[in-house]
């Protein structure tokens, strides 16, 4: 397949990703600012619409970032300079960014991430993996229980779990096949799953989703 010429010029590609993200990112920040009361109290009906727009903007940003990362992996141009960052800092950043997506979502999810997985990953991509894990967790949700995510004070582990049973995952022994990249009906989670798997692999870690009994587990740890 012939590449578009724009992808042959690194600088142009860099600007292209920047430009793609600018509108949803600026929209997200602006709506956030309004919803936080910068200009006074927002009527509930309008706030609800604004919240939906904000969620759509966040999804848009994450999608663009995932495509950008996949493009870098496929072109062998991923910049990885391992840094040691506090896990809590990354968890907090990922949670703050992703929590607007969680409204009204319900799930039975267990998130496990080994400390070294993020501590020895590039900070930026460690955060992306964490964000993608949360998006996948939210996508698996079904009525039953609220998502409860916590991060330990010492930065050792992040866990998220709920108490209810969900039919959507109870009979799966592995959720991976649900999100095969070819499955176009699940384009967004497929993209998030595939990117996370590729990125984790590039960083030297394992990312997998399994389901057993009532619990869907998302796991990210050193190989």
């Amino acid at each position, binding site marked *: 397949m012939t590449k578009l010429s724009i992808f042959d010029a690194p600088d142009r590609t860099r600007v292209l990703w920047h430009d793609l*993200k600018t509108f949803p990112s600026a929209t997200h*920040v*602006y709506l956030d600012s309004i919803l936080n009361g910068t200009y006074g109290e927002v009527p509930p009906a309008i706030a609800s619409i604004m919240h939906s727009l904000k969620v759509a903007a966040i999804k848009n940003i994450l999608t663009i970032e995932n495509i950008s990362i996949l493009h870098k992996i496929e072109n062998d141009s991923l*910049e990885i*300079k391992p840094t040691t960052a506090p896990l809590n800092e990354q968890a907090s950043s990922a949670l*703050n960014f992703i929590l607007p997506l969680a409204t009204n979502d319900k799930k039975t999810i267990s998130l496990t991430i080994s400390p070294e997985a993020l501590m020895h990953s*590039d900070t930026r991509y460690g955060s992306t993996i964490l964000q993608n894990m949360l998006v996948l967790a939210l996508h698996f949700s079904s009525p039953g229980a609220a998502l409860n995510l916590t991060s330990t004070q010492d930065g050792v582990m992040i866990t998220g779990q709920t108490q209810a049973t969900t039919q959507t995952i109870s009979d799966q022994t592995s959720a991976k096949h649900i999100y095969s990249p070819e499955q176009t009906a699940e384009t967004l989670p497929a993209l998030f799953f595939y990117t996370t798997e590729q990125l984790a692999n590039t960083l030297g870690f394992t990312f997998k989703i399994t389901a057993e009994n009532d619990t869907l587990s998302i796991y990210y740890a050193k190989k």
Partner: protein
Amino acid sequence: MPKSNPKKILFIDDEPLYVQSYGDVLVAAGYEVTVARNGEDALKKITSEKFSLLIVDLIMPILSGIGFLKKVHRKKIPTIVFTTLEGETDREDALKYGATIFLKKGETSAKTLLSEVDKLLQK
């Protein structure tokens, strides 16, 4: 609460939504915010006015953020580079040419930006 002698911030960004959403929070906190739409516009403003802090986007028309920083870094003005770019090279270039801190636009809330501005200007 408006301050009697507000510190001046030059916010250099070509995206009006960013400038408005972040800038309004800084103004509400009592800072005086002047906007420049690109590096060249910022150079003009910086020669005629004194600023306590610069907030600089990297990708802008006419003169980029790095191009601007190369021209002004000797002035030693505290500078926040504020961008959606995520590459390590971008961060290194920004720090090399005088950025005090490097923040990711979009993922940084207006409140967090304000907190960083407060910290830098209280030094």
